[in-house]
């Protein structure tokens, strides 16, 4: 418990550091969003309009520290300012409209890749040098080393165009409206298959190989020999004794990946025209939409920190040795 509180304290400080950086970085840059808008509009903007905009963006001539506290207060109310490229939509709304799809796509593909990859890794290590172990790792690494966009487009061409089994783009068919009907859910699932499948294909090899290698090291441990000597059933030794210990490093990488899910999958979103944060981030950077870029960065940071804290909690449950240190 003390351990978790200490970790939580660490994450709170890390988050504060992020907010602070997020606040100061743009203010260290020359110019401000309003002058940018002013030049974009390239037309007349009355001084009072400019003033109003400046107030809207929280740009004023108050001392920096005062602005800083206002900013922090706003962040905690979920107010991340106004998007420039999607003016006058608030940043939180822009992110909110996309994040669901990002979480759905990233979460599904990560879950599948992690579960399946680790399971294959466990089996491969357990039957070291047998069929699974000699065929799968090279094959998956081979597939994983294709440029992602190429693989994604090949899959799209094969399953979407040539075979016509799966929809080509978007997260759901046009004309459908969001509801909890079976039809809508089925449609979303069908649209999810190709993007998720391609992500799983390129990432699963890493999970499998990582697990296989730790697992091989673990099976050489004395407690595995003792478990065999105890006459336990092979399945129990494999999971409860070997995999249970070998999964610990895997949990750490899972936490890292989980945090970055929120960053979106830019290439996937581009190839499959799938809505998501990744594409949003790209456009916001191109459009010099600072508030939105900042908002997305902050969201990603918060997600990475939250995911790491989650992993800490899981880790404490999984590894009793962490509890004392």
């Amino acid at each position, binding site marked *: 418990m003390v351990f978790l509180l200490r970790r939580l304290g660490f994450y709170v400080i890390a988050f504060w550091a992020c907010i602070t950086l997020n606040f100061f970085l743009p203010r260290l840059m020359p110019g401000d969003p309003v002058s940018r808008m002013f030049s974009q509009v390239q037309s007349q903007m009355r001084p009072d309009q400019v003033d109003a905009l400046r107030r809207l963006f929280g740009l004023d001539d108050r001392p920096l520290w005062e602005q800083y506290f206002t900013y922090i207060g706003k962040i905690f109310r979920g107010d991340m300012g106004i998007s420039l490229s999607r003016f006058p939509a608030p940043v939180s709304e822009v992110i909110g409209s996309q994040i669901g799809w990002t979480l759905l796509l990233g979460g599904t593909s990560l879950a599948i890749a992690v579960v399946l990859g680790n399971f294959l890794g466990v089996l491969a290590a357990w039957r070291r040098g047998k069929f699974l172990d000699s065929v799968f790792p090279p094959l998956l690494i081979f597939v994983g080393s294709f440029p992602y966009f190429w693989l994604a487009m090949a899959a799209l061409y094969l399953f979407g165009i040539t075979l016509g089994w799966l929809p080509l783009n978007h997260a759901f068919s046009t004309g459908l409206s969001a509801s909890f009907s079976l039809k809508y859910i089925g449609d979303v699932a069908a649209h999810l298959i190709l993007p998720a499948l391609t992500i799983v294909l390129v990432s699963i090899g890493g999970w499998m190989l990582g697990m296989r290698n730790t697992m091989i090291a673990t099976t050489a*441990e*004395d*407690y595995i*020999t*003792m*478990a*065999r*000597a*105890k*006459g*336990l*059933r092979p399945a*129990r030794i494999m999971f*409860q*004794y070997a995999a*249970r*210990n070998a999964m610990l490093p895997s949990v750490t990488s899972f936490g890292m990946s989980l945090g970055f899910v929120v960053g979106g999958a830019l290439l996937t979103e581009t190839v499959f025209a799938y809505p998501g944060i990744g594409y949003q981030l790209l456009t916001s950077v191109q459009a010099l939409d600072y508030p939105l870029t900042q908002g997305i960065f902050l969201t990603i940071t918060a997600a990475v920190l939250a995911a790491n804290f989650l992993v800490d909690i899981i880790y404490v449950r*999984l*590894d*009793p*040795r962490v509890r*004392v240190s």
Partner: protein
Amino acid sequence: MQTLTEQDRGNIGRAAAPVLSVKNLQVHYTAESGDVTAVDGVSFDIGAGEVFGLAGESGCGKSTIANAVMRLLQTPAKITGGSIELNGRNLLDLGEEELRRTRWRDVAMVFQSAMNSLNPVMTIGDQIVDVFTTHERMPKKAARERAAELLKLVDISPDRLKSYPHQLSGGMRQRAVIAIALALKPSLLIMDEPTTALDVVVQQEIMHQIKELQQQLGFSILFITHDISLMVELSHRMAVMYAGKLVEVAPSKDMLENPLHPYTHALMGAFPPLTGPRVELTGIPDAPPNMAHPPTGCRFHPRCPLAIDACRTIEPLLLPGAENHDAACLLVPEYVVPSERSSR
């Protein structure tokens, strides 16, 4: 430590069928540089309730024998010949499933490193309980009660059932392992250097406890160590191993008082006696032989102070050198008795 009477010593290991009977065991390790014979034609019997010691330098093959008896050897090690009979059943003939059932029920093992032989992410209790649930299909609750009893047997408080290995001291961990080993009351317990990783005080406590448990429960022990004084204290009979072969087998007391083989002599001189006057310790010159190319003739001859020319070419057999006392040395005259031994 209780001492045995002469009569006890005579009876032990002679009456009835042996619990473990190893005959002409051959174990090879396959290496790129060629095959290595780790165990070469080793034969010995362990009687019911007997503590049999196996001594020798590191790498002489004693742990390989222990792992062979448990059938735990994995590639590149392979048993290439001989038989290992446990209670009359040849372990080398057993299939995977039969072997799994036999392990721990008939023969259990205490491993060298207590620190590493327990699963770090499972409680001590769960690691005892899974022996019962696997082998006896015992319900969890009953198994937990049995586990508590076992811990009491080795003087660990039952509330340690919920502890993880890292929460116990080295000595406690090793005692917990001993408790797990005794869970199914096996007829043979193999102890592969059970106290090497522990300090001398804890070592004495544990050895004492093993002795007590052995007398209480009556199991046989195959006790492996390189610590001769410890072995003499605990075991009824002992064998000295050198470069994959047994060089001397005798009751411990005889071995201590009257070692026949020059190697045993040297080993005895390399350890301080626990009691009696101080004696100058003598080491054994040179290192153990490279097992990929063992010396011809007697494998000990390059390091033997008494070696004669014949030792270089003639391989000595393990033959009686005195009553109940076998040695494999050309310099030890064969002892002939008109009893069953003369048939050899």
